[in-house]
C-alpha cells in the first residue's frame, strides 16, 4: 500500500471560490492509502512546494496527488518538486480541479463533489503508480525551417549565428516571401526591399545556412531531436552550379504570357523566370506548364542563348533525405479568394483591387512602375475608396471569423502614401473599427487623418457598382451620421482577409502538429509557450500561428530560434518513460502490436522463459523504449493484456474508472 499525500491548491480564488477546499481535504483523508492531506493558497509557489517536501519527509510519502490546475500546466513543476524532495517524479498525479472543475461550474456543492471525485480518481491511480526512470535520446544538431519568408529567414539567421546548421525549404523559386512583395512598411514607411534584401543576402551567404528553393517537404518521420525529413527538390530545368544569373534567357524567352505570381497576376512573366530582380538564388526556373519546349517540343531558345550551358531540360525532381533535431514552421499567409464577395465587384472591375495588389502597383518594380493608375484604362484615379474588413470578422461561411490584424495599419499607410505623393487624390476609408495597438501605431493612423486629410468614415460598404462611365459607385453607410452614402470612386481597394498558406494543413499533418479550424497552427500554450507547437521539437514562426505584422513576426522568429537553440544545445534529451512494456509470461508473440506501432518500436525475438517452472523458447515482443512514444495503440490490440503502458496502465485507468463511477 502506498502512503499518499494529497495537496489541494486554492489557486488564489480560482479554485477556492468555487470548490470548498477544506471539504476536499476532509474527504480525501477517508480514502485508502491517504496518510496526509492539506490545502494551501498557491501549491506551485516556493512555499507550497516546501509544504509538499516537508510532508514527504515527515509522513514518509510514497505517492503524491496535487489537486490543482491542469497537468498540462504544472505536472512538470510538481514532478520536479517531488524529485527534489527524494520522491520518484512519476509518483505524482494531478487532479485537474481548476480547468475541469472550478472554472466551469458555479454551484459550490456541485463543484466540491466533483473535485472530490477527481481527487479520488487520482488517488486510485497513484495507488498503482510505480517509480519510472526516464531514458535518453540523441539530438541531431541541425534545424529545418519550412518557409523562406521574413519569418523563416530571421529564424534561420538566428539559429545559424548560434553555430548550428539550418536548412531552409522554400516552395517558390526564391526566398523573400510576402515581405518582398511589399512596397513600404508601417509605421516608419521605410522601403520593404531595403530592409529585407540584406537579410536575404545574409542568409544566402551564411556558412551554416543551406537554402532549398523550389522545394517542398514531402515526408517527416521521427521525433524531437531525431527527425528524418524527405525534401523534394523540384526540377528547375536550370543547373544552378552553372547559371550566372545573367538574365538573357528570360529576355529571349518567347513565352511571356504567364501571369506573374509575384505581381499577383497584374503583370506577365516569361516561362523561364526569376520571380523578381533581387531573387535569391538568382537562378531562374522553367515553368514547364508554360514553356514551349515542354509543351510542343519546339523552341529551345533559352538553351541556345545560355552562354554558361546551364539549361537542362532533362533535370528531374530530386529527393533529399536529411536528419534534423528541430523543425520550425514558417509557412506564412496568403489573401483569401474574393469569389464570395462579388458585391464588391472584384471580379467585375479591374479597378477594384486588393491591398496586396496595391502594394505591387505602388512599387517601382511593379506592373505600373510605381505609378498609381487604374488598371482598366491607365488613368490616374482622383477618388480612391478603401474598404476595411473584407472577409475578416465574418461569422458566416464566406469569410474568416478572426481579425486579420494588419489591415488597419497598412490601409492607413496606403492612404497616407497616396495623399503624400498625389495630394489631389481624395482618399476615403470605410472602417468598422480602427485597431491600432502597437508602438507608434495610433499616432501613425492619426497622422493619416489629421495631417494627410484622409477621410475616415465609420461604416461598411454594401455594394460597389461599376458605372457606364467607368467609375465605381460605392454604396456605404455612415453610421455616425446615420446616412447612406453613394459616392463615385475611380478605384476601390479591398483590405482582404489573410489566411494561412495553402498546404500548411498538409505540413501540420506530416509533423503531427495541431492546427485550428482556421488552419492556424496551435501553440503549446497561448500565453506561456506561444512559439512552440504541442508536438515536441516543432516550433512556430510568423503568420502560420496567427495574424502578425513584420515586427511581431521578426520577434517571434527570434523567439522560435532561441527555443531551437536551447534544444540543439543539448547532447541528449530525456525521454518519456511512459512507454509500453510487455509481460513476457503473457505475450503470445502474435505480432499484432507491431502492426499498429507508428514508430516501429516493437520487434520480436525468440527467448527462453520460465513460466512457473516450465522452461520453453517463445517468440516475444520487445519494445525499444527509445523509439516508443507511449501512445498505447499496442496495448489495446493485445488480447491477453501482455502489453501495458507504464504510467497509464490498464489497472491504473480501470482504477480511475472505478473511482469515478463509485
Amino acid at each position: 500500500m502506498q502512503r499518499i499525500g494529497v495537496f489541494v491548491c486554492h489557486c488564489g480564488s480560482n479554485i477556492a471560490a468555487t470548490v470548498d477546499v477544506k471539504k476536499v481535504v476532509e474527504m480525501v483523508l477517508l480514502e485508502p492509502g491517504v496518510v496526509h492531506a492539506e490545502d494551501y493558497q498557491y501549491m506551485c509557489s516556493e512555499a507550497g512546494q516546501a509544504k509538499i517536501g516537508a510532508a514527504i519527509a515527515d509522513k514518509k510519502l510514497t505517492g503524491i496527488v496535487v489537486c490543482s490546475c491542469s497537468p498540462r500546466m504544472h505536472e512538470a513543476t510538481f514532478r520536479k518538486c517531488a524529485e527534489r524532495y527524494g520522491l520518484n517524479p512519476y509518483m505524482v498525479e494531478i487532479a485537474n480541479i481548476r480547468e475541469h472543475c472550478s472554472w466551469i461550474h458555479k454551484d459550490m456543492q456541485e463543484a466540491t463533489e466533483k473535485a472530490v471525485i477527481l481527487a479520488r480518481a487520482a488517488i486510485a491511480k497513484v495507488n498503482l503508480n510505480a517509480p519510472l526512470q526516464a531514458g535518453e535520446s540523441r539530438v541531431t544538431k541541425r534545424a529545418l525551417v519550412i518557409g523562406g519568408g521574413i519569418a523563416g529567414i530571421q529564424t534561420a539567421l538566428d539559429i545559424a549565428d548560434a553555430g548550428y546548421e539550418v536548412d531552409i525549404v522554400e516552395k517558390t523559386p526564391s526566398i523573400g516571401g510576402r515581405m518582398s512583395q511589399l512596397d513600404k512598411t508601417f509605421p516608419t514607411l521605410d522601403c520593404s526591399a531595403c530592409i529585407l534584401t540584406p537579410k536575404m543576402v545574409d542568409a544566402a551567404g551564411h556558412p551554416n545556412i543551406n537554402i532549398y528553393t523550389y522545394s517542398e517537404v514531402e515526408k517527416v518521420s521521427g521525433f524531437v531531436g531525431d527527425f528524418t525529413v524527405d525534401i523534394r527538390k523540384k526540377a528547375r530545368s536550370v543547373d544552378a552550379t552553372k547559371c550566372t544569373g545573367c538574365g538573357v534567357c528570360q529576355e529571349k524567352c518567347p513565352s511571356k504570357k504567364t501571369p506573374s505570381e509575384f505581381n499577383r497576376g497584374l503583370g506577365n512573366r516569361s516561362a523561364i523566370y526569376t520571380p523578381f530582380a533581387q531573387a535569391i538564388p538568382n537562378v531562374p526556373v522553367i515553368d514547364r506548364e508554360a514553356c514551349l519546349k515542354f509543351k510542343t517540343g519546339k523552341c529551345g531558345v533559352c538553351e541556345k542563348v545560355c552562354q554558361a550551358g546551364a539549361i537542362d531540360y532533362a533535370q528531374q525532381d530530386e529527393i533529399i533525405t536529411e536528419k534534423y533535431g528541430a523543425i520550425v514552421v514558417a509557412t506564412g499567409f496568403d489573401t483569401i479568394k474574393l469569389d464570395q464577395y462579388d458585391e464588391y465587384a472584384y471580379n467585375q472591375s479591374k479597378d477594384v483591387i486588393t491591398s496586396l495588389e496595391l502594394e505591387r502597383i505602388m512599387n517601382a518594380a511593379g506592373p505600373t512602375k510605381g505609378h498609381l493608375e487604374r488598371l482598366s484604362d491607365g488613368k490616374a484615379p482622383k477618388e480612391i475608396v478603401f474598404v476595411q474588413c473584407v472577409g475578416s470578422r465574418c461569422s458566416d461561411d464566406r469569410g474568416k471569423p478572426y481579425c486579420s490584424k494588419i489591415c488597419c495599419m497598412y490601409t492607413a499607410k496606403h492612404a497616407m502614401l497616396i495623399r503624400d505623393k498625389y495630394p489631389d487624390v481624395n482618399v476615403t476609408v470605410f472602417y468598422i473599427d480602427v485597431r491600432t495597438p502597437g508602438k507608434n501605431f495610433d499616432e501613425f493612423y492619426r497622422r493619416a487623418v489629421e495631417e494627410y486629410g484622409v477621410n475616415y468614415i465609420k461604416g461598411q460598404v454594401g455594394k460597389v457598382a461599376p458605372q457606364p462611365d467607368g467609375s465605381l459607385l460605392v454604396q456605404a453607410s455612415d453610421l455616425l451620421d446615420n446616412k447612406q452614402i453613394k459616392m463615385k470612386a475611380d478605384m476601390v481597394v479591398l483590405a482582404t482577409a489573410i489566411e494561412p498558406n495553402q498546404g500548411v494543413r498538409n505540413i501540420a499533418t506530416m509533423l503531427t502538429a495541431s492546427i485550428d479550424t482556421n488552419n492556424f497552427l496551435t501553440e503549446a500554450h497561448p500565453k506561456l509557450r506561444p512559439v512552440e507547437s504541442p508536438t515536441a521539437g516543432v516550433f512556430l514562426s510568423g503568420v502560420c500561428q496567427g495574424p502578425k505584422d513584420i515586427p511581431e513576426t521578426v520577434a517571434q522568429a527570434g523567439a522560435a530560434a532561441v527555443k531551437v537553440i536551447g534544444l540543439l544545445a543539448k547532447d541528449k534529451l530525456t525521454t518519456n518513460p511512459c512507454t509500453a512494456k510487455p509481460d513476457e509470461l503473457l505475450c503470445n508473440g502474435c505480432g499484432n502490436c507491431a502492426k499498429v506501432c507508428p514508430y516501429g518500436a516493437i520487434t520480436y525475438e525468440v527467448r527462453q522463459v520460465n513460466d512457473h517452472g516450465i522452461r520453453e523458447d517463445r517468440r516475444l515482443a520487445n519494445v525499444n523504449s527509445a523509439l516508443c512514444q507511449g501512445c498505447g495503440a499496442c496495448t489495446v490490440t493485445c488480447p491477453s493484456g501482455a502489453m501495458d503502458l507504464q504510467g497509464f496502465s490498464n489497472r491504473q485507468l480501470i482504477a480511475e474508472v472505478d473511482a469515478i463511477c463509485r
Partner: protein
Amino acid sequence: MKFSYYPGCTLRNKAKDLDAYARASAKALGFELEELQDWQCCGGVYPLGTDEIASKLSSVRALAQAKEKGQELVTLCSACHHVLKRVNDDMQNVEDIRTRANNYMKLDTPYGGETKVLHFLEVIRDRIGFDELKKKVVNPLTGKKIGAYYGCLLLRPGNIMAFDDPENPKMLEDFIRALGAEPVVYPYRNECCGGYISLKEPDMAKSMCQTICESANGFGAEMLITACPLCRYNLTKTQLDLPVYYFTELLAEALGVKEEALK
C-alpha cells in the same frame, strides 16, 4: 424527360404568356412539364417567422405530390421558386418544421425534403445544357443587346437558393448568349425592384426600378428579360422606355415556337 410543374397563381392569369411560352419551349427542347393536380397558391412570399407552419403547407403539399410521382419539381415564377425551395430546405433541415408540418399533413409517408426543386432556367442549364440549347435555336436573336434582370428572389439567400452566384450571377447571361443575342452586364441586375411595396408605395418601387433600368440602359441594354411577373410589372412603370420581356418569350421566339405557343 418529364418534370412535375408548379405554375403558380399569376401564370394562370396575368402572366399566361410566361407559362405558354415556357410550355412550348419545353416541348421544343425535349422535356415535358406535367402540371401538379390541384396545386394551391404558394403565398407569394416565404414566411420568415420560425413559428409559421400553416402558411408553408401548400408548398409542402406540392413538394410531396412531386415526390410521390418521383419527379423533380419545376417552377417558373421567381416568387414560387423562392418559396418552394426555401420551404423544401426547411423540410430537409429544420426538424421542428418538418415534424409539425408532417403532423398537419398526415401523409402516408412523411415528407422530408426529398423533392428537388428546379427553376426552368436550372433545367435548361443543368439538364439540357446551354450548348444544346444553342443547337436548337432556329431564329437566333442576333444583334439584340439584352440586360438580364434577376431580382432578389431567385438569388437570395445564396446558400439556400444555390441558384447562381448571388452577387455576380451569370445564368441568364449564358442563356442570352445561347439565344444568339448579346448579354449586357450591369451591376443592379440583382437589386430589388420593390416587390410588393409597389402596392402601397408605388413611388418607392418606381425610383428603385429607375436606378435598375438606367444602369442597364447606360451599359447599352435595349431590353430587359426577367422570370418574375411582379418584377416585370414594377420595371415597366419607370419613365424609361425600356421594354421588359419574360425570358420564355425570347426563348420561344428563338426556338421558333412563339406563334404556336399562343394558339
